[in-house]
């Protein structure tokens, strides 16, 4: 079946199997493999994207449900070769190891900071509790959130 949608600001269409997920369509039809497939049942958050502004696990959304939607993936978070402040903070804080959870976490953290520009630790932990990471023990991810929050608020003030 043909699905038309907007992804990272561009009109796209893909001819997908009716049972295909949004994640599969992004990865295998639209050449956007940045969203990851660690569990494909909504437990790990590695496939997090925004659909019409809402943070979703793209593995739990049928491609067909995304018909006409506006989807933003990790690839669309920053223009060109630039890094979003959350991406830069993940690099600087040492929050990246194997990196498989990273795209989903970057998206989830950007979403959190959009809602709450200066979250405290319990708020961060609750917001990111749907994103599994097996490498870092999460400490440096929390550091990255604080670092990004500080830089983003600084940028806002200047």
């Amino acid at each position, binding site marked *: 079946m043909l699905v038309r949608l907007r992804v990272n600001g561009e009109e796209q269409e893909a001819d997908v199997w009716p049972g295909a997920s949004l994640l599969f369509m992004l990865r295998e039809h639209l050449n956007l*493999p940045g969203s990851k497939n660690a569990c494909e049942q909504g437990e790990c958050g590695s496939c997090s994207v925004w659909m019409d502004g809402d943070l979703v696990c793209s593995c739990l959304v049928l491609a067909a449900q995304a018909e006409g939607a506006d989807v933003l993936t990790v690839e669309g978070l920053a223009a060109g070769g630039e890094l979003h402040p959350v991406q830069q903070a993940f690099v600087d804080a040492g929050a990246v190891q194997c990196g498989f959870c990273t795209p989903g976490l970057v998206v989830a953290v950007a979403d959190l900071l959009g809602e709450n520009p200066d979250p405290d630790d319990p708020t961060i932990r609750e917001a990111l509790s749907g*994103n599994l990471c097996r*490498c870092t023990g999460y400490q440096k991810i929390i550091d990255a959130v604080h670092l990004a929050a500080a830089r983003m608020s600084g940028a806002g003030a200047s």
Partner: protein
Amino acid sequence: MNAKTGPGVRERVSRGIGVSAPRVDGIPKVQGKFAFASDLWAEGMLWGHTVRSPYPHARVLSIDPSAALAAPGVKAVLTIDDVPGKRTFGLEFSDQPVLAEGKIRYTGEPVAVLAAETPEEARRAGDLVRVEYDVLPAVTDMVEALDPGAPRVHEFGNVLRHIHITHGDPDAEADVWVEGYSETAMQDNAPLGPEGGLAVPAEDGGVDLYVNTQWLHVDLQQIAPCLALPPEKVRITLAGMGGAFGSREDVHLQIHACMLALRTGRPVKMSFGREESFVAHKKRHPSRIWMRIGANRDGKLVNVLARMVIDGGAYASSSPAVIANATTFLAGPYEVPNARLEGTAVYSNNPPCGAMRGFGAPQTCFAGEALMDRLAGELGMDPVELRLRNALRTGSVLPTGQVIRGTAPARECLEACREIPEPPDEVATGRDAIEYPGGAGNVSRGENLRRGVGWALGYKNVAYSEGFDDSADARVTLFAATDGPVASIHTAAVECGQGLLTVLGQIAREELGVDEVVFEPHDTVGIGSAGSSSASRQTFMAGGAVQLACRGVRDELFERARQEAGVEGPLGLREGRVIDAEGRLVAFVNDLLDGGSVSKSAVHHHRRTQQFDEHGQGDIHVMFAFACERAVVEVDTDLGLVRVLQIAAAQDVGKALNPQAVYGQIEGGTAQGLGLAVMEEVRLEAGLIKNASFTDYLIPTILDVPPVESVLIEEPEPDVPFGAKGVGEASTIVSTAAVVAAIRDATGLPLNRAPVSPDDIVGLRAPADGGPEPPVPDVPWQVSIPELHGMGMGQQELMKAE
């Protein structure tokens, strides 16, 4: 340091060793541009799928692929009879069939593989492969497997290896004895990135394989004979690795993907989902340990008597090495004058176990540290004081007779850990729901919270043991370039996510005084083996090879500089210049390169070790890394729920080459040990994994892992590059023991099983009862039993013999 050039001139190098240089792969990873194995794609590729056995033990009577072959999109269905060459593979013994051959030994064993145009077509066709089984009685309990009447997993029986270590007088008496039984569950490595690979048939009749693996060359040596191809026609390149933790030491889909590509003449991608990943990779061994510790009244240990059994599952994998490792650690990181340590690895009809971070040591630490706490209680001593009194040090003699030659700052770890402040007391009532044990799902509000503190000290060998020369090759090339010389590193050493490449780059910068370092693809073409990225060895081993190769390049440059500039005395490299002892310019490296390059290869060997003798004696391990952790927990005793409040960690790292990455290893390793302490258990029923998903197999979330307050103990190890020890495993070894000790402290319960479940805490499940200690099996000690029965050696063993 170097006979050719004398001592070097060492100056601070930007992003050299000892600083937290940024990850070389950090930016593509945050952008979603880093290509992992599951992201591989090729024009016209097919999707592979594996048909697996639903039974743990059965005879395969017939396989009928005809319906599957006729299904839409299907291009090939292959069984054991389609294997072009050798029909088995394996790390230590070649005991695992490429596809089931006559007999099934575990639930999930591959029976057939197929390739189709789309993953959905492949999956559906898999259901059409008709397999007729004759189901056999299975043995799925490790102690029952030792019974001579138990079903035999392999024809020669179920004992895989028995290690026997005697030290001093194991009949020695002591003033005080404590004894106990403990169990640990099977733990899944659960790397977030599932197994994946892409096999591309080549015009020369060979195949190019892109795959996530921890050791490219040992894969090559297992794959090529099965494909009946010479090694040079199987070219393996590392695909982006989404974590490993030991699970990718064994071949998973490599041979299957290559067979399908060679048969169909098209690229074939295989990419496991989470459920298949649980079934397909090797895991941490479940363990049972019976132990007695005797001490004098003053708290000095006198004797340790221990019996350990681990379940290797259906195939050997690395179980012979795991049981050897584990048995050597059964007496803990303590000076013990007398010991009898017995360890047995068995075959069963459970899924095979192999390597996972810690490699046998976490299980022994869990058992031993529980008894150390009990002994402290019997003696009325502080648990830290008891450990300080007995801790190993440089010069200590281990139960194997091995003398610790290198650094062994066990006491320093204990003392540094003790100095880390505990978290303040928290008011029990009125908190946000997520700040109670169990989080938002908790139905109590802090009515019966108890706090506890637990300690664990542990240690682990670095690099392979028992005489294995697991060397590492590297080639470093220095190019002339406009903005200064550029170093290029070629190794087959695998980046799993631990930060290896960043550290190798730091080493090259340090040695060559360059700013720019690039990496050639990590492959099996034109470069020798780097050994495995496991056993906490790769920074040490591949790092050493890069250092040696850099020094070869450096010596060549110095030679040219001496000839061209006519200087003598020590020289150094800094910022693209050769300098003398006063820092004066001798020559520009670019000029010495004269528009070309200098390339040097090197092989790094660690010091030789020995195999066990008949009494388990020998210089078995290369070196040791120690760690101490203290856990503070809060337990809701009404609900049996645990919240870990803090982990304090002090780890012996030798020298931290990249401190940020070292802290990351400690924090991540701690989280995995915490998982085994309170939640992670592969639940098996008659050999079937009942919780093969992240819905049912829980790994710690950001709400479960507390702040980890770490201290690095830096006492450089002599005679190793930069004095750096491996840092990947020690924290995992101690955190399980520390967290469960803290829960014991909070509840007063004996808790001898990891993970601790809520039922254990609220009294719905009694402590594990191991029954009587199983007898030592009637097999020769130390030697792996399959070897005695003519089982073909695995590739790892063949490399060891070379």
